[in-house]
């Protein structure tokens, strides 16, 4: 059992939407020995990745893998209105299988996107989004605006690899870029910025609308000379600067998408960016959290025409966030079974929604124990993607990347588990 250690180059870290693809991993005896280039978050996650692994379970009792899979198929095929939820931390292949499964059992299918960047996607449907790849932004952008996003803490390698501190072709270093941060508090990212604008909580919309007017040369109304806590004169200066830059970029986070106003905030930002393209180039990129949450939207859109919150009860896809989104379906108690794929709604959804999961048959497919596996009727283990399983994931700028496995895993991956359940239902 003592083999030579082997080094894998250019491994993709899947622990946040930045999907750094330059990780170097040394493996010996099917264990990680050393990790290079990973950020602190990633290092910790890699360390924990092989711990706390799930085993197949039905009602708390360990069973054979196949038994758990057929129990899941039984629950879904007898359900009259099932919910399939999660998807953001799995591969595009598993997401595709999940959509197929949803179609087979007339389910509602939704990803965690509906509680993080979903509002941004709704906005995109209203105005469209001017976007670019991170590579282009790194090489060309001379003004970077971070709005309600804090990559220094949430995507630690982002600044170095793609944005603030990166070495681009035409923008060589920090000095070649102007960094602007809009946030409700002075975050570590704000400390790296040239200008920090402190937003009064929940007034992003007002500021963005005012900026739209300022860019078009008109003055917004303000009684005290401030808008959303920021001096109007300062916003005016910024608007002028925005018009002069060659290539501006806006990275937006949940500070924008989840504050009061939700999709209208991002809508206002997208409209502003659209208008700024009359002067120079301006683009927007969402700072996605989970490894493949961007992929969940892309896969779902390519399979059903819609990015999340899709319903198949009439055998054709219908889309309506608020009606078919998981949080709302659970809060209104409208589903009678749930299949959770690679996510932890008991920890992340509002209490009442999570509470309802306890009452209905719930299946969890996840490599690790979490709060939801605790309340699940059926637990199906799976290989950890990017470590013990390969597949496709999408970066926050929608660039697809191919994962490679470098450890052997005792369980099949998500995609094969979901497809297997689908086959069982079909042959029923």
């Amino acid at each position, binding site marked *: 059992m003592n083999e030579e250690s082997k080094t894998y180059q250019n491994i993709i870290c899947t622990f946040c939407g930045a999907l750094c693809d330059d990780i170097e991993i040394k493996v010996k005896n099917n264990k990680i020995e050393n990790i290079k280039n990973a950020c602190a978050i990633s290092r910790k996650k890699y360390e924990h990745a092989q711990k706390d692994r799930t085993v197949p379970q039905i009602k708390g009792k360990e069973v054979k893998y196949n038994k758990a899979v057929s129990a899941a198929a039984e629950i879904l095929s007898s359900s009259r209105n099932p919910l399939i939820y999660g998807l953001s931390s799995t591969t595009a292949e598993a997401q595709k299988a999940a959509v197929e499964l949803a179609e087979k059992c*007339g389910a509602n299918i939704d990803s965690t996107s509906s509680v993080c960047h979903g509002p941004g996607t709704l906005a995109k449907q209203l105005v469209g989004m001017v976007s670019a790849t991170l590579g282009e932004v790194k090489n060309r952008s001379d003004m970077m605006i971070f709005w309600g996003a804090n990559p220094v803490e949430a995507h630690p390698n982002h600044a170095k690899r793609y944005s603030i501190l990166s070495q681009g072709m035409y923008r060589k270093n920090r000095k070649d870029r102007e960094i602007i941060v809009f946030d409700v508090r002075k975050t570590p990212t704000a400390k790296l910025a040239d200008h920090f604008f402190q937003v009064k909580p929940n007034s992003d919309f007002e500021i963005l609308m005012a900026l739209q007017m300022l860019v078009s040369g008109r003055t917004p109304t303000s009684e005290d000379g401030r*808008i959303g806590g920021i001096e109007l004169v300062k916003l005016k200066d910024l608007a002028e600067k925005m018009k002069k830059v060659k290539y501006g970029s806006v990275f937006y986070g949940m500070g924008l998408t989840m504050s009061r106003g939700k999709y*209208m905030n991002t809508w206002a930002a997208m409209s502003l960016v659209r208008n700024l393209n009359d002067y120079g180039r301006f683009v927007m990129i969402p700072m996605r959290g989970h490894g493949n949450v961007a992929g969940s939207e892309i896969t779902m859109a390519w399979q059903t025409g819609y990015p999340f919150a899709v319903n198949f009860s009439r055998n054709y896809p219908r889309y309506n966030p*608020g009606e078919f989104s998981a949080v709302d379906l659970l809060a*209104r*108690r409208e*589903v*009678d079974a749930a299949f959770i794929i690679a996510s932890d709604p008991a920890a992340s959804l509002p209490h009442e929604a999570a509470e309802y999961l306890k*009452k209905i048959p719930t299946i969890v497919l996840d490599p690790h124990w979490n709060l939801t596996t605790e309340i699940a009727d059926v637990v199906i283990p799976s290989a950890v993607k990017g470590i013990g399983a390969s597949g496709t994931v999408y970066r926050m700028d929608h660039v697809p990347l191919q994962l490679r496995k470098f450890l052997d895993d005792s369980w099949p991956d998500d995609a094969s588990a979901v497809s297997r359940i689908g086959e069982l239902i079909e042959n029923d």
Partner: protein
Amino acid sequence: MSKLKLILKKDNPSLIQPEGKTAGKLPVEAENISPDITAEKTISEIAELTLLAGRKKYKLKDFFKIEGEPSQNIFIDGELDNFKYIGAGMTTGEIFINGSTGMHTGSEMSGGKIEVNGDTGDWLGAEMQGGYIKVNGNTGNYVGSAFRGDKLGMNRGVIYIKGSAGSFLGSRMRRGEIIVSGSCGDMAGAQMVAGSIYLFGKAGKRTGAAMKRGTIISAHQLEMLPTFNYNISYYPEFLKIAFAHLKNEFKIDIPQNMFSGYYHRYTGDNTEIGKGEILIWKEG
């Protein structure tokens, strides 16, 4: 006048009962409950009409006790808060619901009347083309608005809500009138293209955001967006005519003090064409 009576059975197939106890209710899609459909059918045909609970098809008689005779006049009794699309697309006739209804009630209707003696879900009268909806309780978000992906919301018709309404009231509406006696949420009249919204209760933030044209009348002070301009303070004479029309034709209660005093007029949204107006009532 003849009437068709539908009485919701206590024990109906929409109940979710995992271990014998009711945990929740499946959504029921009930677009077949519409005067256009029931008037043309016999009682036994009405009993066979399809209702979809989750993904399973059921018959109307599985849910309701049916009384009376086929008619354009439907009376429904029961808590139907999980029933969607009641009266959706109807062109004539009347539905009275003694209880609450779910989403999409009266959406895309083009004539007739719906009265809900209770609350309703989201998308009430969304994209309606005509007719009258009255809600005696509260309602959800997106009243009279456009469905996702569509450009225009309600186009003619009147919606009267005696209780309160949620967010995005009348968003992207094209024509018609919405009256809310209670409070309403954020973004009332967002992106509206034309039409009138009367807010007799307090409104949330960002009323009229990105509106193009149309009129919003508010009995209370609003937190105005920076993209609106103050114009003038006056009593708009047309309001007297508008109020009289709502009062006489639709029996809508107009707060007496709004007939006098004066109104602050704002125009916007200036990020759009800026032809929308917001009138805020002030004591005389």
